């Protein structure tokens, strides 16, 4: 188990290095920070001078090297755009994104699992058909449109929910939360839903498929033959077995929720790392972009590790190193 965790962590480091490397490979092409940094009252000389100072004339692997060495000391440089330490910026924005991600993840998980179970237990029911079809609409529209649509309906027309932002926030240490105020919670609703739709559909379908599989296994038939109550069978035996494979995929999905937030945060002006990234891309704020990508990788790695550990807890076969059925 421990060896496993260590191995995982090692892999994670590699993953993140790879990510950072690719990132730097790419940055040279997404535009020229200097032109965005210097206003129109600037000469070619100024451009050259600044580029020199930022070390942008060095080959990318040198830049990469500097990035890594600094990153190892927790130094991510300062944002070209906002002239503040990147680490600080990201830390400031993190709570917003995490709260949004968790909220939508919860919606996706609860909704997805519940509906998944329902449609699996009543495969032929009309309602199941409706749910299955309706859930698809969520994945049939680009996120930005869904967002705008929700704003239009609930903020502009009905005026029941705020159209943007995070509402009133309260600070708990360095953590700035919107979950403690009514306005904070109300502002969370629309973005969270927008962000969750895609995952919800995905999880729901996954749960349904897996559940249907499990319901046909021998041990479920045997459980029936032993006269266990339908509840006990469906929720005691079937559900838990369903969850084993569901956990992995879901884990991956939740990882990408954070990154998916890019669009949602932009549309709802949600002050998270996603919108920070988008704003930075606009002006090629390399330090922020690099840090963000590494951050996303980190999140993914952590979640993955978490998922694997969860796996161990749920499935006894893995504890004894037996290859799991799935």
């Amino acid at each position, binding site marked *: 188990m421990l*060896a496993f965790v*260590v191995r995982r962590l090692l892999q994670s480091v590699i993953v993140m290095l790879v990510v950072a490397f690719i990132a730097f490979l790419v940055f040279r092409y997404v535009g020229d920070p200097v032109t965005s940094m210097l206003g129109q009252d600037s000469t070619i000389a100024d451009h050259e001078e600044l580029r020199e100072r930022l070390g942008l004339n060095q080959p990318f692997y040198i830049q990469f090297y500097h990035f890594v060495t600094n990153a190892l000391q927790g130094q991510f440089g300062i944002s070209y755009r906002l002239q503040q330490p990147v680490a600080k910026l990201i830390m400031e924005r993190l709570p917003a994104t995490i709260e949004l991600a968790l909220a939508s993840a919860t919606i996706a998980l609860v909704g997805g699992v519940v509906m998944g179970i329902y449609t699996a237990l009543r495969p032929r029911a009309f309602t199941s058909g409706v749910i299955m079809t309706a859930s698809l609409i969520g994945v049939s529209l680009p996120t930005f449109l869904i967002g705008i649509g929700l704003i239009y309906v609930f903020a502009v027309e009905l005026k029941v929910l705020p159209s943007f932002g995070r509402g009133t926030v309260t600070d708990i240490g360095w953590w700035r939360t919107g979950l403690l105020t009514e306005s904070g919670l109300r502002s969370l609703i629309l973005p969270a839903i927008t962000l969750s739709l895609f995952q919800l559909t995905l999880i729901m379908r996954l749960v349904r498929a897996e559940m249907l599989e499990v319901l046909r296994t*021998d*041990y479920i038939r045997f459980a*029936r033959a*032993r*006269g266990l109550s339908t509840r006990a069978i469906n929720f005691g035996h079937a559900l838990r077995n369903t969850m084993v494979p569901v956990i992995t995929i879901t884990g991956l999905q939740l990882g990408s929720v954070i990154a998916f937030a890019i669009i949602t945060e932009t549309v709802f002006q949600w002050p998270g790392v996603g919108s920070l990234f988008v704003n930075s891309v606009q002006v090629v704020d390399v330090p922020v972009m690099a840090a963000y990508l590494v951050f996303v990788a980190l999140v993914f790695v952590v979640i993955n590790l978490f998922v694997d550990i969860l796996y161990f807890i749920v499935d*006894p076969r893995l504890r004894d190193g037996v290859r799991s059925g799935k």
Partner: protein
Amino acid sequence: MTEPVLSVKNLIVDFPFHNTNFRAVNDISFDIMPGEVVGVVGESGAGKSMTGSAVIGLIERPGRITSGEILLKGQRIDNLPEADRAKLRGKRIGMVFQDPLTSLNPLYTIGRQLIETIRTHLPLSEEQARQRAIDLLTEAGIPKAADRIDAYPHQFSGGMRQRVVIALAIAAGPELIIADEPTSALDVSVQAQIIKVLKELCSNHGAAVMLITHDMGVIAQTADRMVVMHQGKIVETGTVGDIIRRPREPYTVKLINSIPTIASDRSGAPASAPANDDGAFVQIKGLVRDFELGGGSFTKVFKSKTEIFRAVSDVSFSIQKGKTYGLVGESGSGKSTCAKMIVGLIRPTEGKILVDGHDVWAGGAGERERRKRVQMIFQDPYASLNPRWRVADIIAEPMRTLGIATNKGEVEGRVADLLNKVRLDPSVMRKFPHEFSGGQRQRIAIARALSSQPEFIVCDEPTSALDVSVQAQVLDLMRALQDEFGLTYLLISHNLAVVRQMSSAVGVLHNGVLVESGPTDDIFDNPQADYTRMLLDAVPDISKVA
């Protein structure tokens, strides 16, 4: 007279598929008396399992009971609402499934599953239920039940799991136990014990047993009365003794005759082979195979030492040209590993394999020889034929690959020829595997094996997936072909009877070691090794009928 525990009257089960209606059980009637063990025997598709499902009320959609009655202790149950039927299950009717590996929920301890079942049916406290669970397990022959009750299914062997399953079935003290092929997934040695446990437990708890199986031997040993089913109908009913000794119906006769018996066989055994000499066509010398346990490539990278498991250790034997050598062993004995090494699928850790003098693992040359001379017939005819390929292509592949025949016409000719050889109509070469029955598929597999004109064929459990009647036909075919082409067989099987019938010499493999090897009759008639003796005793055989 006493009232039967179960009586089935004119039961009909239909499977309405979208275009056809298929009648799985066709107007059958029988009774089971208290404490009685009734065997329901028949080949696959006879409708015996469906009868079991019907009784306990677990027929899978779209199947349904069209007509007939099922009475439990005189009370009609087939028309009860689902809720009430559920109450019967486990409480009054218990069931045991074929595969112990998949019958238990892998995520819960056996204790939890037992206690859950017990408490669903009996008004017992957690502790009482636990105690009862431990008792049951002990009864079922699980050593140190008290300690092992909190273990997970995967921590038990197949046989042990089946004991647990039986304990579960009996947990609430039902009057009737339906056992559906309870032993077919187990090794012979374990089989015997399980049957014993099943019988004992049921008699202790006064439960009648409906024993569903394809294995006459099991019935012969276990059951009081038997019901022979064929194509959904009951062919014959009576006491086991009567039916086996004096079968009335032609089908029963055919069935019984097709069963290979371990008693020295009628078909005149081939003269026993001379002892291992170097002139032999196939020579296996000191074959060894080790496996590294556990861990993907990453573990390999990260942890230095990996435990070694020796699957085959120092196995040596030889086969005369045109003869058959039977390799007997239970699952995990390493017999399949041997086969894989001989046909070139797994590289031996040590040892030599000489076919007609060529070392089949000696580099390119050896391999080329091997491919020309050695072929294989697999156990599962459903997995051994590529479902997406036409029969013609399947059979043609070897000759194409080895360049025996290339131009289209020639290939077609040969394929047609081979199909004739395996008694199939050449016109079928345009069809896909799924259009054939198990027996026919095995014939196609044989045709493919012959397609490269081999001299030596390794047959890994060639008939164990087939019904007895089909098995007989396939074995006959193999004999015929052996005579026609002077083929040499290595016959790997867990079925001692089959081996005795087919082979001139036999080797008994146990935990990777060849415990005994020699002429068939010597080994069967006066075995030296205890293990061999144990095996032979364990074999359920109709000749041993009470």
